[in-house]
């Protein structure tokens, strides 16, 4: 009860919104669809929180309520920040805890969620804090009274910190060794079980000599340990087996070029899906391996920020360089505060001003992070069938002066004063 009142107090703007109709057509001047370029005079049809149809100058059937903001508004998909701690505290250990989940520390009542939602952030990837292997991230919508209501998808990536150090490399190798260890144990246990079964069968045969023996799968009444149960996996073995099977992806946080080489060395022959997190520092030297990263084609999560060539004052646009080299770009706010989210799009625009491709930049704050979080089929672009997570601007979203006019989360206006 107290929680509810708190929530109401926390989200006055949201609470004051009038209910958005279930079926709605929105006409805007421009739509940045991300997956099919920019549409002029776009019409988006929304039903039950999903985008049903999108196109240029679509005829709208009579009776459908229309929100006509053509030509002043531009719409783009809600922003996806795949790397945030949000309101969670940042303390963490240095050990390998691949079983920990950020979703376990989720507390829905925080102001942060409402604040960033008003800024157009409709999906957040919350990661577990700490060095070493801090655990698994969760994708959430920044709205909901309970953790269950917030969670879009859990176990979206396993965060692993990798530095040029023996201990970090060992930690990663040990994870896969744990997985191998379990496979071995499992094999032994299975063989043992099979032998036991055979013994039982034989003894049963002797007992029920004249009866015909049914298939081995048929459960017999006097079987005390009928089904085969594989040995328990520990958290490490489980996580690394999931990595191998593709159920889980890894996000490696590295801080310089040499870390990447050591990472490749530590990974060795293991094959699994992984992406990179590279925080921009003033003299980040990741450009030394940009071609290698590009050749691999993994995602690189980085802040939209210029840096300097080490020991010089020469500016480098590393997001652009990485993207040009072939890496898939994911841009995250420079600061994980509400203010950081407010500046996020403008900083992204700055990168475009310094040469980053506009389409890449827009994708880097929407669809690319959504795919990193494994929710690319639900959010991240203006595509029929996806959630109606939309931000409306009056002007170009990447221009410094542009402000958010309205935000829609799953078909419902959650920010801005919108009159039909």
């Amino acid at each position, binding site marked *: 009860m107290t929680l509810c009142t708190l929530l109401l107090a926390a989200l006055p703007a949201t609470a004051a919104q009038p209910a958005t109709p279930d079926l709605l057509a929105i006409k805007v001047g421009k739509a940045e669809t991300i997956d099919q370029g920019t549409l002029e005079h776009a019409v988006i049809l929304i039903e039950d929180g999903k985008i049903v149809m999108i196109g240029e100058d679509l005829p709208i059937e009579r009776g459908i309520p229309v929100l006509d903001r053509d030509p002043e508004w531009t719409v783009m998909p809600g922003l996806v920040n795949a790397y945030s701690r949000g309101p969670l505290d940042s303390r963490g250990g240095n050990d390998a805890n691949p079983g920990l989940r950020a979703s376990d520390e989720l507390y829905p009542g925080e102001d942060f969620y409402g604040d960033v939602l008003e800024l157009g952030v409709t999906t957040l990837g919350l990661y577990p804090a700490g060095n070493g292997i801090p655990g698994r991230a969760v994708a959430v919508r920044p709205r909901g009274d309970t953790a269950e209501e917030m969670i879009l998808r859990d176990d979206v990536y396993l965060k692993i910190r990798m530095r*040029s*150090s*023996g201990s970090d490399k060992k930690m990663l190798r040990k994870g896969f060794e744990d997985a191998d260890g379990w496979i071995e144990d499992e094999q032994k246990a299975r063989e043992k079980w099979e032998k036991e079964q055979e013994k039982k069968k034989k003894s049963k045969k002797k007992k029920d000599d004249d009866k015909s023996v049914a298939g081995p799968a048929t459960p017999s009444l006097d079987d005390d340990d009928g089904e085969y149960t594989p040995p328990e996996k520990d958290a490490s073995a489980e996580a690394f087996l999931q990595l191998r099977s593709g159920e889980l992806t890894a996000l490696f946080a590295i801080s310089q070029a*040499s870390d990447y080489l050591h990472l490749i060395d530590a990974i060795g022959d293991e094959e699994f899906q992984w992406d990179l997190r590279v925080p921009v520092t003033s003299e980040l030297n990741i450009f*030394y391996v940009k071609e290698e990263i590009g050749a691999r084609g993994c995602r690189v999560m980085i802040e939209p920020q210029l840096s300097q060539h080490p020991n010089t004052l020469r500016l480098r646009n590393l997001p652009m360089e990485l993207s040009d080299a072939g890496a898939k770009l994911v841009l995250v706010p420079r600061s994980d505060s509400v203010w950081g989210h407010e500046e996020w799009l403008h900083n992204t625009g700055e990168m475009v001003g310094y040469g980053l491709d506009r389409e890449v930049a827009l994708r880097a704050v929407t669809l690319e992070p959504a795919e990193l979080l494994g929710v690319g089929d639900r959010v991240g672009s203006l595509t029929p069938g996806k959630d109606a997570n939309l931000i409306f601007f009056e002007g170009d979203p990447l221009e410094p002066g542009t402000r958010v006019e309205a935000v829609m989360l799953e078909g419902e206006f959650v920010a801005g004063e919108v009159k039909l």
Partner: protein
Amino acid sequence: MRFPLHVKAALAAGLLFAAAPLVRASFTPPTFDDEEESEEGEESAEEDGPDTRYFAVVGADIHTGTGEVLRGATLLSKNGKIQAIGYDIEIPGRDFQADVPSAERGYTTEVLDATGFRVYPGMVAIESSGLLGTGGDFRDSIDPFDQNMVLGLGAGITSTGQGSSAVKLKRYVSDGTDVDYDFDGVVLRDKWYTTMSYNSANSRRSLREDLERASQYIREYRKWQEDVKSDKELKEPSKKGVNGSVVEVLTGQIMAKFRADSREELLGIARIAQEYGFRPVIDGAREGWTVADELGRAGAYAIVTPRERRDKNELLVRDGGSSIENAAILHAAGVQIAIKPGSRGVSLGGITGRDIMHLPVEVGFAIRGGLPEEAAVASVTTVPARMMGVAHRVGTLAKGRDCDLIVTDGDLLHYQTFVQWAVVDGKVVYDKEAELFFAHIRPRAETEVAPLQRLDAGENEEEEEGDEDDDDEKDKKKDDEDDD
């Protein structure tokens, strides 16, 4: 000029034999695969695969570090090991009458035209710090992009002692594809010395005890080895109280390094080393010139810094204090000299010219004191390599050795000389013109700027031509646009 070297070599050989009986009997010293490797090289029956990497330097005066100077010669390496040095060497992929179509060649060749330049073995700094990043085990912590590594290479250093290990300045060179870096190749040797001290009554006593116990243990161990053949139940002698490192020193596996400057300590070390049959490495040895004969007889190695000073004790009548002639006198007495500068790391503040970047300058001061030039070059190449037990891989240019070399625009030890290229494991890891540090100082003259020829596995050759065409077209287009 050469005479002292021969004397030195003879002395060294003699001393090695003196120490040999200890080594031979039961403790096998670490075996290096030197011979095997060179045999493999001779066969060269290994088929060239797409990973085969040839690298050649042509046109330079090659100072091999073994006494030879080959003017305008060619050095060819295959997969990071030197395959041939000399004249009329066929460089795979460069022969114009090659009957194998370039597309089927299946290997890469890189040719560095260094006409007018000199080639030396990459320098071996006996001691340095911070050139490979900050870490313990360099296999797992090296930063192959470290700025200090670039500066070290720019100074001409390709190998160095860091802590007690011998490592290479193996910079990462991107070829635009997936990561290709041999982390194991960074470390030449994990532990080449143990520290011993002889500077106080206590340390002297404990050192003597350690040596006594260790040699006692070695004797017992050898006796056991013989006896166990007849009586298999015999127990191995106990290692209790025996310092393992000291055993390693006495069996010739690692070196014993002393930090000592005063005449008394140096004499004491020479004596104890002869008594127990090992060759000490003396770091400092500022008064070494006063007891050079004794140190020479003990087969000592010395790591000296010619510009370091030590005052004479004026209460004593006999010689003392530092001398500019120290290195020269020690060398003449048969002490093998390695030279290190005053500061181990790259230091960009304070008084310039005393850090690891100025290793050749420091060596210059030894020459000023009378050290023959050949010995001076050896003090930053062969001698440190020998001390660290890695002379079979670095320090000289010879068939089978690692292709670690530097290309300079003048005499290695001239103050004006710049390293133009540095090569580690057959890869160009430093190019003066490509780095931000010295490119602007006396840039390579137009005629001297030798383009690095890259002969790919064949498939790119046509593309290169195509590129040229494209460029032409672009130029034309530009012209057209200009016209418009």
